[in-house]
């Protein structure tokens, strides 16, 4: 997948400007930056879910196809088997009125993948018993695992993970990152991991782009960005991650 020159404006305000990056099957790319940099908006634009009043420009190159990022209908067609999202607030993204198993079965049917909820749960380290649970009976870490199981159930080519560890304790964070990376590597899924936790993603993403105020201010091998931050935002993130 290649994103070329993604831009987004709302009411004349430029929120994203000339954002470009590419990712291959099985690769993990970190999207870093301070709060408000536009990280989550990039994912929403790729999914065709930018705010209704947003004007989105740029092109998504998908295999041999060229998809205008303004074409929400074409992007909707890619959701599921093409692009799947693991949201930040997993518990809020689940249907509170239906069991985990029912939600998994629905998603598998929708995207014509094999409908075996128990196997999908086992992939993310949850026992069969969780299929009968409602979202309110899940801890934060369990809800994130269910959200990951739902995303993986689509068998996507690219997994977009939006700060999936943000509200978890550090043990759950480490477990979730390990799970994300291992599942994506095993199934050759490209992983785009949005995070502001540089220390956490440094272990799992070889490559990164850094956003600030909607623009890419740094990109390249994460090890090199850490060793020699090329500009002030990256330098501030590295310094804050090393402090303490």
């Amino acid at each position, binding site marked *: 997948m290649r994103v070329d020159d993604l831009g987004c404006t709302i009411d004349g305000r430029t929120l994203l400007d000339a954002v470009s990056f590419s990712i291959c099957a099985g690769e993990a790319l970190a999207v870093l*930056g*301070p*709060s*408000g940099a536009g990280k989550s908006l990039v994912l929403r634009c790729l999914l065709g879910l930018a705010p209704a009043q947003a004007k989105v420009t740029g092109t998504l190159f998908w295999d041999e196809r060229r998809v205008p990022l303004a074409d929400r209908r074409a992007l909707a067609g890619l959701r599921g088997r093409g692009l799947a999202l693991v949201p930040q607030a997993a518990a809020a993204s689940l249907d509170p009125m239906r069991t985990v198993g029912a939600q998994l079965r629905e998603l598998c049917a929708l995207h014509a993948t094999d409908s075996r909820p128990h196997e999908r749960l086992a992939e993310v380290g949850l026992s069969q018993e969780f299929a009968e649970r409602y979202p309110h009976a899940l*801890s*934060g*870490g369990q809800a994130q695992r269910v959200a990951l199981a739902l995303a993986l159930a689509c068998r996507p080519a690219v997994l977009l993970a939006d700060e999936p560890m*943000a*509200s*978890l*304790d*550090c*043990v*759950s*964070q*480490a*477990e979730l990152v390990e799970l994300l990376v291992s599942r994506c590597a095993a199934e050759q899924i490209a992983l785009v991991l949005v995070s*502001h*936790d*540089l*220390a*956490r993603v*440094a*272990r799992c993403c070889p490559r990164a782009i850094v956003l600030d105020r909607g623009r890419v201010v740094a990109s390249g091998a994460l090890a090199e960005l*850490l060793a020699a931050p090329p500009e002030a935002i990256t330098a*501030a*993130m*590295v*310094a*804050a*991650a*090393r*402090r*303490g």
Partner: protein
Amino acid sequence: MLVGRGLTVGARLCGVDLELGSGAGLGVIGRSGSGKSTLARALVGLEPELAGSLKLSGRELIGAPRSAWAELRARVQLVWQDAATAMDPHLTVRRSIAEARLLAGRDRFTRDDPRLAALLQRVALEPELLDRLPGALSGGQRQRAAIARALAAEPELLIVDEVTSALDRPVAWTIVDLLRSLRATGIGLMMISHDLSFLPGTVDRVLVLADGRPVEVGPVATVLAEPQAAATRALVDAAPRL
């Protein structure tokens, strides 16, 4: 000032002992669901099931009439994890601060009160933000406003529950630096944090909870460098480092 013995809240918290006072700093760590937030809520009277003993300056609060808790609410303030939902979205920062003073039985700030200016300076919040609603503030500004609101009650003890978890790390450090500066002025601090790196230099001692029970307590440097309990070791091992 605030001494708890055998603090218990149903099955969520069991047998916690602690002593909190002016100038003292206690960190509370543990996995999600370990009872940290329950403890924070219990200490400000928001857990009706609280059992054991909780004394404020020698006066027992558990079983005492609600009026006995009023004094505690003026002297102990809780800052919540998510300032976006903890602050009334319909009140400007100025009115939130005024409300906190009213509830704590303090006198009203006048519009140009030098104490209000000093309060804003203390939390590094620009005066022009006073008349904004919480929704018009950035995450870091909102958390500073929430801390300003708590300080407006002139508490002796501040309890902060994961106040950095929604912030990016450079902004989170500015909040931690603010908490350190408040401690240096004599305010007691109980800091709940998933991020262990914020604790050294901010608190003196740390209490580790697992499944609602205390499993380890001691000086922060010792507990983090030589964890004894399995739950503490798991937290220390999982902390990311560059």
